């Protein structure tokens, strides 16, 4: 650690750091949350462990619950809270969800899918997700922007 100049250093996954036992979110996540708080675009943020750590007010409308109510969710929990389906209506495995691709494969991903939120409402959304690295070898999490799309009537 500390050899930050290019090279073949192994990737480091930075979860919650602790200073003398006190937890501290990575600065990149803190700044991502501040950015998301200022956006009119729905956004959610996951940390390096895959846990959902924040979603903003525009996201609350789409997800169907406020962040204050839902709170942060661990990796195993949050994706299952939202029922996801591809455009044909078939259930979408979590690993094909753009946010999961960004988290697990560490690459940007975009897609459209049907999402049933925590309020039971089904919405067509487009999601663009990108991994967050604080340096080329330090993965800190993921940010996803998403939009509710107008539903097209079948001709």
């Amino acid at each position: 650690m500390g050899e930050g100049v290019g090279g073949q250093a192994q990737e480091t996954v930075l979860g919650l750091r602790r200073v003398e036992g006190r937890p501290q979110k990575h600065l990149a996540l803190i700044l991502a949350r501040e950015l998301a708080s200022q956006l009119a675009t729905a956004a959610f943020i996951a940390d390096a462990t895959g846990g959902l750590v924040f979603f903003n007010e525009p996201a609350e409308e789409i997800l169907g619950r406020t962040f204050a109510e839902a709170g942060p969710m661990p990796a195993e929990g949050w994706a299952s809270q939202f029922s996801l389906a591809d455009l044909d209506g078939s259930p979408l495995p979590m690993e094909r969800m753009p946010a999961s691709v960004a988290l697990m494969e560490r690459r940007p991903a975009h897609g459209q899918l049907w999402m049933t939120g925590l309020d039971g409402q089904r919405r067509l959304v487009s999601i663009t997700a990108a991994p967050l690295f604080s340096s080329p070898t330090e993965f800190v999490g993921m940010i996803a922007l998403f939009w509710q799309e107008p539903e097209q009537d079948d001709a």
Partner: protein
Amino acid sequence: MRYGGNTPCVEVRTDEGTLLILDAGTGIKRLGADLEPDGPVHVLLTHLHLDHVEGLRFFAPLWRPGAEVHIWGPPSPLHTLEERIARAFSPPLFPLELADTAAHVTFHDVPHETWEIGGVRIDAHSVSHPGPTLGYRLSANGSSFAYIPDHEPVLGVEMAALEPEWISGHGLAARVDVLFHDCQFSEAEYTSRVGWGHSSVAHAVEFARRSEVGQLVLFHHDPDRSDDGVDGLVERAQELWDDASAEPPVAACEGMTLELT
């Protein structure tokens, strides 16, 4: 002149004689002139903005044959710390090169984990300020000190609404005996300087209170601020400070000495 005009440099000494120097602003020139070379010198840089490294070229131990100097700083994926510092040690900015220094100089990227120098435990975290910027927490013999001289702890959100782990720098400052923290702006000045990477007096006080520090020392005075103006910020900080269990805030001044026991 009550507060002084040098840029940041703080000397930390333990009872065992360990010497750490935080930042190499112009204040380091005087420090270096007074230093007796009796062991390794460790300079911990928060970041490489000129006001925090300006004095390094004039730091006497660098020019003493046989002296051992270690320089620590934030890592970069593109250039080593030595390469970045060398920019200031070269023409046209300086007539001599870094390679011309007489001391044995070693450059270190700060580690992510806690590390020790001479019995002092050190933590370095990135904090919110333009460019890679660190804050430091030093602990030794049951005392602790946090140094976050350039910091804008929140941007566009209310600190009161955040849990501690979401406040930049909180992990470093939590429950330290003494916190040196950025207090460049008054509350009125800050409204037109959001995103500059510095704190208002209200930010500094709220951050210190949320971190439950023992003593807040206002630092990084605006270079255009008069001594009376700094007094005014201290007065405002003390108004905002609402914790009788801790010492009221004070402002750092040149030559100030604090003893932690």
